[in-house]
Each structure stands twice: as structure tokens, then as C-alpha cells.
């Protein structure tokens, strides 16, 4: 194949295109933070997962230690069964508990792990049952209203004693 002047310019063009792709992958999508580390799968049951989605972070003390792999509904006990992929380099006590938390007031939901006290550690395939469901705003509001109403009822009953 004969070399022509075009070779240089086409090479430059392809390089620019590749550099643009690399820029998008590294700078805007942060490819480096994706680690292809080995993980082990742990299942957890939640009464209510709120707005949790696959691929959301699992954090312990604020540090990402894994991701949510899949979410399915278990129609035996009517709970959500969430599979977590935890990184191999972190191990947690068997009695660790999970909470569904929200970053900020309107932020994304994530799962927080609180380490327990047991000596044995979680193995692949284990199930965590000590979980706390997501806070559902509607339930919270209705609870608040009910308690207000109850308070209001008792206080009106109690007012006659007070002047």
C-alpha cells in the first residue's frame, strides 16, 4: 500500500475522534471509578424498597462498598428480595443490618450497611434479614396527621380542666 499525504491527516482525524471518546469516557462518565473487582452476592429482604433501582450504591460509613445487582418480588412472604454485589475486599459481620437511606432531601436512595458485632462474616449467598425499609413520604405524612389528630382529640378533651 502506497503512503500518501492523506495518511497523516486521516490518522490525525481518527486520533482526534478517539481522544474525544476517551474524554467523554474518562472526564464525563468517570470510567476509572468503575472497578472490575470481584464481588460476592448477598440477598436481603425489605418490606418496602421505595425508589431503589438496580446499580445503586451500597455504602458503609459513606464509602461505596458494592452495588445493588437485582431486585425481585418474593410472593411467598410478599417482600422485596434485593441482591447486593459486595466487593470481595470488604467483609462484614453476619449480623450487619441494612437501611435504605436517601442522600439529601430529594437525592438518590442508597443502601447503608451498619456493621454488627458477630465474629463470623457474611459469605456469598447469605441472607440479611435485619433491614429497615425505605421511608415513604406518604406514610410519614399520614402518620403525622393521625398523631396530630389524636393529639388534637386528647387536648380538646383535656382543655376543660385548664383555664
Amino acid at each position, binding site marked *: 500500500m502506497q503512503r500518501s499525504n492523506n495518511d497523516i491527516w486521516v490518522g490525525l*482525524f481518527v486520533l482526534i*475522534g478517539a481522544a474525544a*471518546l476517551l474524554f*467523554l469516557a474518562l472526564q464525563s462518565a*468517570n470510567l476509572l471509578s468503575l472497578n472490575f473487582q470481584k464481588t460476592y452476592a448477598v440477598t436481603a429482604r425489605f418490606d418496602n424498597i421505595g425508589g431503589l433501582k438496580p446499580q445503586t450504591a451500597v455504602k458503609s460509613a459513606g464509602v461505596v462498598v458494592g452495588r445493588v445487582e437485582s431486585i425481585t418480588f418474593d410472593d411467598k412472604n410478599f417482600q422485596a428480595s434485593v441482591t447486593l454485589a459486595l466487593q470481595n475486599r470488604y467483609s462484614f459481620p453476619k449480623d450487619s443490618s441494612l437501611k435504605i437511606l436517601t442522600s439529601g432531601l430529594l437525592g438518590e436512595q442508597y443502601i447503608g450497611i451498619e456493621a454488627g458485632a458477630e465474629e463470623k462474616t457474611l459469605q456469598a449467598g447469605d441472607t440479611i434479614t435485619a433491614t429497615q425499609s425505605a421511608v415513604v413520604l406518604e406514610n410519614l405524612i399520614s402518620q403525622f396527621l393521625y398523631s396530630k389528630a389524636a393529639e388534637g382529640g386528647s387536648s380538646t378533651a383535656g382543655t376543660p380542666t385548664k383555664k
Partner: protein
Amino acid sequence: MSWWRPADVGFAVRSKLGDIGSAARLFVQLVGPGAKSLRRFGLVRDQIHFLGNYSLAIIAVSGLFVGFVLGLQGYYTLQRYGSSEALGLLVALSLVRELGPVVAALLFAGRAGTSLTAEIGLMKAGEQLSAMEMMAVDPVRRILAPRFWAGVITMPLLAAVFSAVGVIGGYVVGVVMLGVDTGAFWGQMQNGVDVWRDVGNGVVKSIVFGVTVTFVALLQGFAAQPTPEGVSRATTRTVVVASLAVLGLDFLLTAMMFSI
């Protein structure tokens, strides 16, 4: 001419069916035996040079200005909700997922597609293609296939350049001019943009658009009436058909990729 006569309707349907059939045959020829032209890379390289390098300026400048405008408009809207830090995310997502592939493909159709159609059409009008066939050289493999593959290779690169330059444009307007925090701009972007789901699907989209635009341009040139009027009509039709096809396909691809 009375198009409601059954015979005329039948004729129109048959000729349209014939058009679709010959288009499909050309496509199969380009993708199948035409892939061998990649081995004679000199031909493809010259076409990449023509389609890619000369489109780079218009793509980069358009990307820069689209990024500027996204920065301004995004800031205006986000600032109402007190979340102007998310500007980087908005600019990057809209460019990588949607505007980069689509606008680059539309520009590519206007800049490179038309010249492909005109070139092929004039070759046909000058009976150069027939002359090649006389010499037992297949014009589809010698002329059309290198152009097709060059377009398919060029389009994703151009779309990536468009998106990258656009993100920089958004950065210039958002951070340098309007005073959004630099760390928040890049941080929100890096948290929200996924390499495979967003960038990867954008690349897939731009490859599909590259196939579409280049194929439409080549087909229109190859099927053009070999007259000056026919070539000019074919060039116009390239822009219309390619743009509509890109926008329609974009909807389909987006529905397939992002709704799951």
C-alpha cells in the same frame, strides 16, 4: 394523470416495491461483498479523509455553540430550582445521549451526504459507472463500498468530537462565565453519566446514523436520473430522506435503549 385509476395505483405500488427491492439489494451488496473493500484500505482512507477531515471544522464549531446554548438555557432553568450545580450533568447527558449523535448526523448529511450523492450521480450521468462495468470492474465494490464504510467509520468519531466539544462549551459558559462551581460541574457529571448506558448507547446510535446517512446518500446518487436535473433532485432528496430517517430512527433507538 389520474392516480386513482386502479392500473396507475398498481403501477405506482409495483415501482415502489421495485425501488425498495433494489435498495435492499444494494445494501446487502455494500455490507456483504463490499466489506472486502476494507482490505484495500487506501480507497477507504481517501474517503475518510474527504468525509471526516473536511467535516471536522463544521462539527466542532457547531458542537461548541450547541454547548454554549445548552449551558445558558440549562442554567436559566436549573437556577429557578436552585440546582445550577447540576448544569454539567444536564449538558453532558443531553449531548452524549441525544444531541451529539443526532445533530452530528444531520450536519453530516448536509455536509458529506450531499457531496456523495452529487459525485455518484454525476459519475452515472457521465457514464463513468457504465464504463467501469464495461471493464469488468464492479462499481458497487470499487466506488460505493469504500464510501459507505468510510461514512460508517467517520460518523461515530464526528459525533464523539461534537459531544466532547459541546461539553467544553457548556463548561466555558457555565463555569467561566456564569460562575457555577467547577467541582460540582464535573462531579455531578461524573456521578450521573454512565459509560456503557449513556456514552456507549450514544456511540451505537451514531454508528446506526452513519450507516443510514451514507447509505441514503449513495442510494440516491446511484438511483438518480442521469441528467443535471435528476442529480440535483437526488441531492435534495438525500438531505430530506436522510434527516427524516435519522430523526425517526432516533426515536426508535431511544425508546429501545433508554426505556428499559
